[in-house]
């Protein structure tokens, strides 16, 4: 029973560590499927994290904090959308600028909240799941926001493949000129997709600062935004594969904590490197199959559209 409990705890930790990656990647996936490459995920996550923490710490409401984090992320992405869509600025450069801007803004917002800690809510209580079973232990151990993430995953998948607006979004990402010619608002679709991506990144940041740690530290996302961008490539723009990819990275993160606590004499810095090294490894493996990348990349990705 002890081993099983340990495994369950490991699983809970993995899924929890994967949650912010799932959120940010799903958001970026939707934006990229509409043909917009937003490299500012890291910046949007940071702003989401700082705003969510500031609001949660001031108001005492984690939910309000999370919602404000989402709004802050969406607002950041609106800046990006205006520059790249309305002003046709280079998407790569603008994404980088957004990240640099986000680092500054989040450090500024968070500067009054360093060292503050949040009142953490207990785990979700679901009355009909008995905590005797393994499944019960697992399900009870997850953060409420993780459940929301899983629901969001199904929503995104249904939206992309089954709904009519999702079909429009894929059409816009495929051939924007044709979508325009048959009367879709290419920019409108892209604005919404980018803002959805921003809101998701904001929630991902909020998850980190409000639920996961829960403290505010400058640059606390530590590259998770970039890993989320890499995950979208890794998943070949498929939401289901994003979930698996995020779990893989969550697993690597947790593994690293456990090796660290096992005291094997490996310097902690090398263990902390693991997720970054894993990202490079995954990119190398995935990208070397050029044909597959070409086949799955949204055709108009990062190409500005002028109506």
């Amino acid at each position: 029973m002890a081993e099983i409990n340990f495994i369950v705890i490991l699983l809970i930790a993995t899924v929890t560590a994967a949650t912010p990656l799932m959120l940010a990647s799903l958001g970026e996936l939707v934006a990229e499927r509409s043909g917009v490459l937003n490299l500012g995920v890291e910046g949007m996550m940071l702003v989401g994290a700082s705003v969510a923490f500031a609001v949660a710490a001031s108001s005492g409401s984690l939910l309000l904090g999370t919602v404000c984090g989402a709004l802050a992320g969406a607002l950041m992405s609106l800046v990006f959308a205006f520059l790249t869509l309305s002003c046709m600025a280079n998407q790569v450069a603008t994404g980088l600028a957004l990240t640099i801007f986000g680092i500054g803004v989040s450090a500024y917002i968070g500067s009054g909240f360093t060292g503050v800690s949040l009142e953490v809510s207990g785990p979700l209580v679901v009355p009909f799941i008995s905590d005797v079973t393994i499944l019960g232990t697992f399900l009870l151990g997850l953060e409420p926001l993780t459940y929301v993430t899983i629901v969001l995953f199904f929503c995104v998948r249904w939206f992309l493949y089954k709904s009519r607006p999702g079909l429009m979004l894929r059409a816009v990402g495929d051939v924007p000129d044709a979508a325009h010619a048959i009367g879709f608002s290419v920019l409108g679709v892209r604005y919404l997709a980018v803002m959805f991506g921003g809101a998701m990144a904001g929630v991902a940041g909020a998850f980190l600062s409000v639920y996961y740690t829960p403290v505010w530290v400058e640059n606390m996302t530590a590259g998770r935004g970039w890993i989320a961008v890499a995950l979208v490539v890794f998943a070949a723009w498929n939401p289901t594969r994003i979930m698996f990819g995020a779990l893989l990275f969550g697993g690597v993160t947790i593994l690293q904590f456990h090796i660290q606590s096992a005291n094997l004499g490996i310097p902690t810095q090398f263990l902390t490197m693991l997720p970054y090294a894993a990202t490079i490894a995954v990119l190398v493996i995935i990208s070397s199959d050029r044909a597959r990348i070409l086949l799955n990349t949204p055709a108009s990705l990062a190409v500005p559209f002028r109506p």
Partner: protein
Amino acid sequence: MKVIYGVARPDAGTILWEGKPEVVGSPAYARRLGIGMVFQHFSVFPALTVLENILLLSPKGTRRQELAARISELSQEYGLPVNPDATVGMLSVGERQRVEIVRCLLQEPKLLILDEPTSVLTPQAIQELFVMLTRLADAGHSILYISHKLHEIRQLCDTATILRHGKVVATVDPRQETDASLAHHMLGTLVPSLSKGTSAESGAQRLIVESLSRRAETVHGVDLENINLTVFGGEILGIAGITGNGQAELLEAVSGEWQSPSARNVCIDGTAAARLGVTRRRRLGLVYIPEERLGQGSVPGMSLVKNGLLTVQVGKFVRWGVIRMDAVRQFASKCIEEFDVRPATYAISAEALSGGNLQKFIVGRELLQAPGVVVAAQPTWGLDVGAAQSIRQILLKLRASGVAILVISEDLDELLELCDRIAVMANGRISEARAVGETSIAEIGRLMSGEHEPVPANAAGA
């Protein structure tokens, strides 16, 4: 036309639809009125399935199963077979057009607009399309057919309105007109005809492609299979065929952008060159005039001086890795002067030139290298009549001086006018080249649709 379909708005004037003035604010509104449109560059989405493509334009709440049933019903009624579950990116160009037409017909339009629908079709597919359009017209649909191919208009249409520079110049009954009289309306002045001259009888085999095969790099690419062709000095060999049948892959293999593992696949003036890169093939006297003028043949945002340096032999213009700007400037001026590029200033940026002048500059830059073999892809594509004619004239002059010229073009009329021999590409294969006098449009059309036997490996160039 964009105005009728609601993509663009008029600055002035009104559109009368069934007797009432209408402001067509959007394509959706046009569709509600009963106007359907098939675009020249299709507005279908390669990443989606046929069903999804059609679903996009169907009324809200349409069920997938119902729609699939209606698609098969309709495609039987008009003889337009399509598979609803196929991904459009995997379909041939003709099939894509069929998808687009089916999509229009499902909205039961009263008016169907077709914009240059035949530019990507084989002659046979064009005849099938015409049969179908006639059937639609008989069923009571109005059809607005836009084309610059005059014989099509004469064959198909009941009335023709001729536009020149955005103005209506005439409305005629095409069945009463000849190609020449229609062209006269369209162009205003009479087109200067081409003086072909005689070909130099040098007869040397200057460019040989032998047993060239190449696997496609992506699923959208085409495999080349056992390509054989020979271009003699003093002749123009044309390659006809619809774009996307391996022309791009062949051009890369000839120009050196792609290198074959076996050196004898490409020979330039007797040197086995298939393993050489672009620069070393240029040194052998090969020049290449690419299809895309801006972005491939020239660099946007760079002056003509710097664009002049793009493909020249560096020996004269670069010393110790440093560019000799004076020499490059002189070269650009010479090119501008000799090939009548306007405006005649080398400081101008490539994208500021008109298509015709940019093409003249590119052609000039390449021809000043004193080439032995010229490869030109769609050399007059998108040019106005005058510029196209002067480019053709330059190529003919070159032919007379003993250069071997390979022209790849979609424009069959151009090839028939320009070439000594014509081969046809389809599905990554090439037919045996035939002298222009010994072939017919019907035969070329049959070959374009892929009905030919592969040429035996040693048949060409022997």
